[in-house]
């Protein structure tokens, strides 16, 4: 146990390999046979906000992506550029991209993830949301100075995001996030450049898939009568009264 060869082989290679199998390969095996969603497939579901960017900033859009139309090619380009900017500016060191299954209303008694960010059709984050070409590597994050972003699609408008990038304190007065003037073409924060447009596209893409994945086990359960106590107070106040149409009831066709 005190020889070079023994330590090299058993402790060095052996124990590392054991841990790699248990903690790396076995979790990986869970996704065996599931195809990674390609960029082409992702580009079949373009959030409408991308079209709004093309409409509102036609010249900047053309300069950035070489077209005035929100095409699939331009969308793929914008997504990849946006993700690169997100990584380069280390956004993921202060914003997470995962909704943990912790919530007072979900049986775990403590936590806030689901109440804050989960949607009605999708509660905590599931592995399939990350099983695509935009997650090499994943961007789970380990620190939340600002809110989680995995369901940020549609939560704010494009204009809100641009104002936020120009100076976060314009939209969130107590924010400690730094401004990003290099996302804009001019010195006044009116016209976003390629990075700015791409990052807004990326923000509006995050979570835009969640009504279009196969229903979860939770979603396949028969719809129980509406239980107010499930929701946190501020959601329950806006819940539909009895007899009204369920706003989340309509289901779209599943492209996958």
């Amino acid at each position, binding site marked *: *146990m005190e020889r070079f060869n023994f330590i090299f082989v058993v402790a060095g290679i052996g124990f590392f390999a054991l841990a790699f199998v248990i903690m790396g390969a076995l979790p990986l095996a869970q996704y065996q046979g599931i195809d990674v969603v390609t960029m082409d497939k992702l580009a079949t579901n373009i959030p409408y906000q991308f079209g709004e960017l093309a409409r509102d900033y036609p010249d900047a859009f053309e300069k950035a992506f070489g077209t005035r139309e929100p095409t699939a090619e331009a969308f793929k380009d914008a997504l990849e550029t946006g993700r690169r900017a997100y990584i380069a500016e280390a956004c993921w060191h202060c914003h997470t991209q995962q909704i943990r299954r912790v919530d007072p209303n979900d049986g775990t008694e403590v936590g806030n993830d689901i109440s804050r960010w989960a949607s009605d059709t999708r509660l905590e984050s599931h592995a399939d949301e990350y099983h695509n070409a935009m997650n090499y590597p994943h961007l789970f994050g380990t620190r939340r100075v600002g809110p989680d972003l995995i369901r940020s699609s549609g939560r704010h408008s494009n204009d809100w995001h641009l104002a936020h990038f120009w100076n976060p304190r314009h939209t969130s007065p107590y924010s400690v996030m730094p401004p990003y003037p290099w996302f804009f073409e001019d010195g006044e924060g009116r016209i976003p450049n390629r990075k700015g447009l791409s990052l807004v596209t990326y923000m509006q893409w995050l979570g835009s898939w969640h009504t279009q994945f196969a229903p979860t086990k939770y979603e396949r359960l028969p719809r129980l009568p509406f239980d107010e106590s499930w929701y946190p107070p501020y959601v329950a106040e806006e819940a539909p009264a009895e007899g009204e149409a369920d706003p989340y009831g309509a289901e779209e066709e599943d492209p996958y």
Partner: protein
Amino acid sequence: MTQVATSLIRPVVVTSRGETRVLVDTTSCLLHFVAAVSWIGVGIVAGLLYSFVFIRLYPSEGVEWLSPGRVRMVHTNLMAYGFLTNAFIGMMHWVIPRLTGEPVLSHALSKVIFVAWNAIVAAIVYGLLSGQAQAIEWGETPFWADHLVVVGVGLAVVNFCWSIIRSREKAMYVTLWYFTAAFVWTPLVYVMGNYLPQLLVPGTGGAALVGLFIHDLVGLFVTPMGWGLMYFFVPVITRKPIYSHAISLVGFWGLAFFYPLNGVHHFLWSPIPMFAQYGAVISTIAVEIVVTTVVINFILTMRGEWGRLKESIALRWFMVGMTCYFITCLQCAFQTTLTMQKVIHFTDWVVGHSHLVMFGVFSFWIAGVIEHLWPKLTGRDWWSRRLNLWHFWLWTGGIALMFTDLTVIGVVQGLVWDSLRPWEESIRYSEIGWFLRMISGWMILVGFVCMALNMAMSLASRQDHSDREYVGQFPESAGAGAGGRA
């Protein structure tokens, strides 16, 4: 174990195999320590600069190359690859040839590694500041730099392993167990963490691997290096062997078995399969038990020697660092439970925890090594003991303030989020804590200036170092008779 006690104080030049050879490459040792101290200076400034963004006083707001997010990555990567790696290589140049009785593969190669490694670190800083980061925590090094890092680490491993393989010692000393294991683990960990999630494994499966990488970089590279140096320098300074050889074995093999299994605890409650999360929690708690045995071994080694802390500042660094290590691991055994993770995950609690281990433990141990070795490497006495004391107390006070402060506001943040109050309330409640964190950063920076100034002034002074024992004149038999308990 007598020969081990002797080998701890082998001279720089030895006669073996019929020829007189330079055993210890003190030049490489010195160069690496100078580089390490330079990088930690830049790293501390980067960390302090980053802390200003939290009190909304960031000095270079709107400057792309000094954007806080990029500066943060420079801070962590410089600490890991600039400071710790340089210091460990320098320290190993001093330790390994003494324990094995054989020089490293080539002293010329050592110089090449020194130049290449620091060029890589400079390239990493450039890459991060120019926006080419990679989205892997502690591995934000641009992807093109990863190939260079792997080559650099490979060269260093070959250089040092040569010395260990050629050794004629019957049994390897504890320090070398840790180093040998780290020589295997470090390249494996780096390749696994930086290549697989980037190229082959997307999303959640990749997250499991990145979790392993985050933890293994600390657990399988920094920790073995740190304990290796403790097992060498503490007996050297106290002139007493390690209390128990058996407990050393338990500590090493326990760490080797349980530490690699810990990684997934960075992503508890995430979509990673729960069996991996439960396993990570259990093995993390097991590590705490292992760590306790090692700490007990050192406390018993120090029995009757605690009075030396008054004289030896180096020993103070080692013992305070060891205390911080025990606190870190004890804290980890609790915070890794799924229950506590609901509240404290994503908060500043974790930031305090990682500063306690990377700064309060390993940087302290390296400060102790520098304290001990600088006069021996330069042949000059310390210019001022008072400055060294200031360095010690400023860093100790700084990490104590930072750790308690971040732990407290971590709990506050977690509870504010949990109570479903508006998000910005957690920021407003954290403001006082973030201000105090900035103060602790200043303390650490001033402490660093004390150290750097003292090192430079010592080098410039003409007072020869009187204690020449390690530079060649010391008889080999002096350490004999100090046997360890088997």
